[in-house]
């Protein structure tokens, strides 16, 4: 009876995982077959080498990192559990809280909305005001150049619209004060400027006007304004005015009264 070689069964035979009947058959074949014996011997050498192969050992780092990761996972997991338990216990209270929170959110967002709206309209208003101010300035400056004296007075009186007039307006007013041919315009210009006596431009204009002004009532008003602000530079022009022959006596009188107050 010719038997097949058992080479294919040898690994299992060596591992002792063959059923007994097969195992016995292999042994029987081996006793008669030198080729399979040789094969078995070689396989034994290989298996011994495999068994003797030292296992590589990982460093402690591996275990440490694994345990750290595990702790982290445990921490996050327990946290989730505790929250859900707390939720079950006080679901009524937490529902009320949720309602309260949503109301608060609603109110807060409404307030925010109105605040933003207000801010926006304020911005718009400021823009419009700014624009109308510029418009008025243009109107004022052009009115002051008008041929009609009453229009020029109207332009000068626009000054009341400007709490903080810029240099262009002040310059235009001082020009009115110094060079306008109409007494009333000059008087109005003076009255407008007298509110801004802290400005150097205005002071200089007053002092210069003192030398050129012929209308006595304006002269007196200028003198009084200069005395009131204690302008030292005005002393020279006032004394000159005193020496001039064409100066009205009551003007001289006014200067005489005012001069000591400045010094």
């Amino acid at each position, binding site marked *: 009876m010719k038997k097949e070689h058992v*080479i*294919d069964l*040898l*690994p*299992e035979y060596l591992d002792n995982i063959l059923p007994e009947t097969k195992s016995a058959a292999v042994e029987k074949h081996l006793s008669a077959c030198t080729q399979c014996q040789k094969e078995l011997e*070689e*396989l034994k*050498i*290989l*298996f011994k*080498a*495999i068994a003797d*192969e*030292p*296992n*590589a*050992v*990982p*460093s402690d*780092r*591996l*275990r440490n*990192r*694994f*345990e750290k*990761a*595990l702790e982290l*996972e*445990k921490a996050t*997991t327990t946290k989730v559990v505790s929250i859900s338990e707390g939720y079950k216990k006080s679901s009524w209270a937490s529902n009320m809280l949720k309602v309260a929170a949503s109301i608060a959110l609603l109110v807060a967002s409404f307030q925010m909305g109105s605040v933003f709206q207000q801010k926006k309209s304020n911005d718009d208003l400021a823009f419009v005001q700014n624009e109308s101010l510029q418009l008025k300035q243009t109107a004022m400056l052009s009115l002051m150049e008008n041929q009609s004296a009453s229009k020029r007075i109207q332009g000068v009186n626009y000054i009341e619209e400007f709490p903080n007039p810029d240099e262009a307006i002040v310059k235009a007013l001082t020009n009115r004060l110094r060079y306008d041919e109409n007494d009333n315009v000059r008087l109005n210009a003076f009255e407008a400027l007298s509110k801004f006596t802290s400005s150097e431009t205005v002071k200089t204009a007053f002092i210069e006007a003192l030398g050129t002004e012929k209308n006595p009532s304006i002269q007196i008003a200028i003198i009084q304004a200069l005395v009131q602000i204690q302008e030292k530079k005005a002393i020279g022009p006032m004394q000159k005015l005193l020496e001039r022959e064409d100066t009205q006596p009551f003007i001289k009188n006014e200067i005489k009264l005012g001069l000591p107050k400045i010094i």
Partner: protein
Amino acid sequence: MKEPSDEIVMRQVADGNLDLLKVLFNRHHKHVYNYLYKMSGDKMLSEDLTQDVFYKLIKYRSSYKNGSFVSWLFTIARNNLKSHFTRDAKHHEDISVLEYKSVENRDNKQEDYSHLQNALNKLDAMDREMVVLNKFQEIRYEELAEIIGSTPGAVKTRICRILKKLKGYYLESI
């Protein structure tokens, strides 16, 4: 057997008893590490990949489906190894990329390989993997079949052929 099987322990882990993962780590991390080391020939890499295998075990514990734990574990390890090399090589060549990699590693790092490891390196990657899993990590034919998606019979025949080849390389070298 007085200790509970891997499968029972893993089921408890999946139910939330995370501490039991330490038991599984103690039982298996050396096997996983050695498998990866035999396959890649790189100790540092094997350590990192082993680390990653157990991270995944933590993360995907609830996806464990009552099968053989060892098969599941080595499936993860195998995928890790494969994705590491495909990521590195930037093209998908299945596990065969390991062949070149392993030879490269030997040249570059000059790790001290035994005759047996050298013989193993001569096998192609798929064969090497099967013999490493079966003979070194003692994974049974049934589980191995599950891991590589084949039948126990086919695995048995294949292992037998690979062993013959490996024996040839090994006897040549000594």
